[in-house]
């Protein structure tokens, strides 16, 4: 009887596991950026923007990526959420926020502030790659872009480095069955639904979810969660920039427009400027 039952139990459990089928460890990239409400000012020497004495916070799109990972954990589709940040000493602040919002652990890949100012998406992607290879993650979630340089490069570069499939600009993430995710992406003119096999890289778009607020009980719990720091150099990352900044300038001021009395005057003006055919 026992001999008979035992294989069927194991069959049953593997069938059950197949139904649940995702048990991800998710690494979430969060970047410390100048707060979205701050009016950006260019340094007088035009080498960059002023960041000293300026309010910083977690990149809002990374917050959305983090929220999605935490939600997947709450739905028991993920087992662990680890926050990652690449940056100067103060990046630890956004990692604490990530821990207060539901991440289980945090990894800080440290560089000096001067190095951080010159870091590029490739360096961040390389650091993410090293961590993924060291700690065996099943998925990496990041924001679709950071609101400071708006580069939108980290996710695709990382997918390339790891040779993983990518699901960029996600607006909905579901269990796709058989170790995959079904991801809806917002594209010009509609929605694109794709299935990606895990492990995969995902980037979060604005409408994916509404991030939660860090509550006082969770802020206090976050203080006790582990935050590990590793120097980028220890990971063997070459921080040599691929690009050089020639000059940073304020965008040109938009010139004031004029008013027209009626439609015929408008058409006359447009014709005059050659914007519609005479």
């Amino acid at each position: 009887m026992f001999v008979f039952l035992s294989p069927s139990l194991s069959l049953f459990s593997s069938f059950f596991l197949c139904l649940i089928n995702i048990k991800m460890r998710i690494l979430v990239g969060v970047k410390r950026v100048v707060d979205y409400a701050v009016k950006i000012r260019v340094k007088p020497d035009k080498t960059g923007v002023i960041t000293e004495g300026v309010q910083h916070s977690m990149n809002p799109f990374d917050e959305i990526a983090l929220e999605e990972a935490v939600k997947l954990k709450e739905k028991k589709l993920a087992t662990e959420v680890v926050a990652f940040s690449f940056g100067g000493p103060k990046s630890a602040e956004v990692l604490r926020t990530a821990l207060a919002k539901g991440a289980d652990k945090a990894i800080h890949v440290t560089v000096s502030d001067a190095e951080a100012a010159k870091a590029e998406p490739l360096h961040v992607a390389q650091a993410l790659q090293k961590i993924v290879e060291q700690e065996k993650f099943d998925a990496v979630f990041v924001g679709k872009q950071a609101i400071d340089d708006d580069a939108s490069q980290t996710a695709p570069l990382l997918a390339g480095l790891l040779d993983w499939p990518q699901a960029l600009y996600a607006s909905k993430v579901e269990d796709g069955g058989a170790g995959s995710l079904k991801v809806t992406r917002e594209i010009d003119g509609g929605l694109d639904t794709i299935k990606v096999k895990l492990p995969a890289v995902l980037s979060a778009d604005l409408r994916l979810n509404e991030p939660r607020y860090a509550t006082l009980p969770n802020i206090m719990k976050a203080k006790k969660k582990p935050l590990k720091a590793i120097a980028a150099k220890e990971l063997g990352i070459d921080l040599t920039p691929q690009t050089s900044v020639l000059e940073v300038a304020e965008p040109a001021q938009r010139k004031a427009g004029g008013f027209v009395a009626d439609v015929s005057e408008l058409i006359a003006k447009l014709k005059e400027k050659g914007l519609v055919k005479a």
Partner: protein
Amino acid sequence: MALNSITRSQFPPTLSTSIQAGIKHMIYDETHLAMQTSLKKIITEKINPNVNQWEKSGKYPAHYIFNQLGKLGVFAANKPADFGGMGYDFAMSIAIAEQIGSIDCGSIPMSVMVQTDMSTPALSQFGSDFLRDQFLRPSISGDLVSSIAVSEPHAGSDVSAIRTTARRSGGDLIINGSKMWITNGEQADWACVLVNTSKNDNLHKNKSLVCIPLNSRGVHRSNRLDKMGMRSSDTVQLFFDDVRVPESYIIGEEGKGFIYQMKQFNDERLVTVAVGLLPLQKCLNDTLKYAKTRQIFGKTLLDQQAVQFRLAELEAELEATRSLLYRTVLSRCQGQDVTMLTAMSKLKIGRLARKITDECLQIWGGAGYLNDNSISRAFRDFRIFSIGAGCDEVMMQIIHKNQNKRTF
């Protein structure tokens, strides 16, 4: 529009706060600051976009807002962990109050502060477990809205002169009387009420604080009182007509109500100071910005030295008041008696609220006299700082009483 061109403009602007990255704060640790950051976010995203509409309609949804803030831990700060609190220090109450000041009106901060530090401190510290389970726990979670009911039509700052009575009948108290200027009065579920529980001649020893559910038989609420400012806050007069509550609803010891209330007043006064700092700073910031652009006689307003000096002095006074508050909180957290320092801080914020709003409004001129200008709302709302939570004159009485104890 290409979705990929989404940028920072999609996220609403916020008001800058006292938080400055990397600088060690006098009284706030990183937990206080993290709580402020989170609170600032919810205020910017969920509260401030609706404030104008609530101010116009004369009411705001207290239960909805309290629920949201309750989830965040706003009412839990220094309350005991056994009843849903976080058991943090009093500086957390101050940190929260200070950030609550970034709400774009006086009404909602006042309403929230009633529950954090006016109606609940005595209950939290002296209430029985039964009473705390009944009233404190659901107030900390934000499920219940409360009021503090001490003042009466003829007894405001002179608390000992209240006339509301509670007589005994079996194991119950039968309450009769009325309470005036009751913030949250229309929406509140319960009130912490000061009543005379005996006919003792000693007016400081015959009173008790009682938790009264406001849906009790015999509780009547007046129509909303029509106020000069604080428009979205519901203020009423409460009437108690043979209201019956169990004796066990008395907070702590019977007869100690006056003492408890005086203690409770200290918390109330300190959060009142804290909640005033950001809005007054905003008055100065907004006025400075306006004066920079407003042209007069071929120059900007800010080119006038009189305007520069006025703004400079007000800035210095506000900083002095902020520093006095922090020093008071620091002493309190170290266990010292801060009654006199508290009275000083409260006196200064009351005086300064009048001065800053009046002088800034003068710089705005006609533009500031319009109701949709935030400076005119501040002028109406913050006049109360010299009246509520013990008026300026009572603060000076307290200061003088302590001053006069000195021997030379």
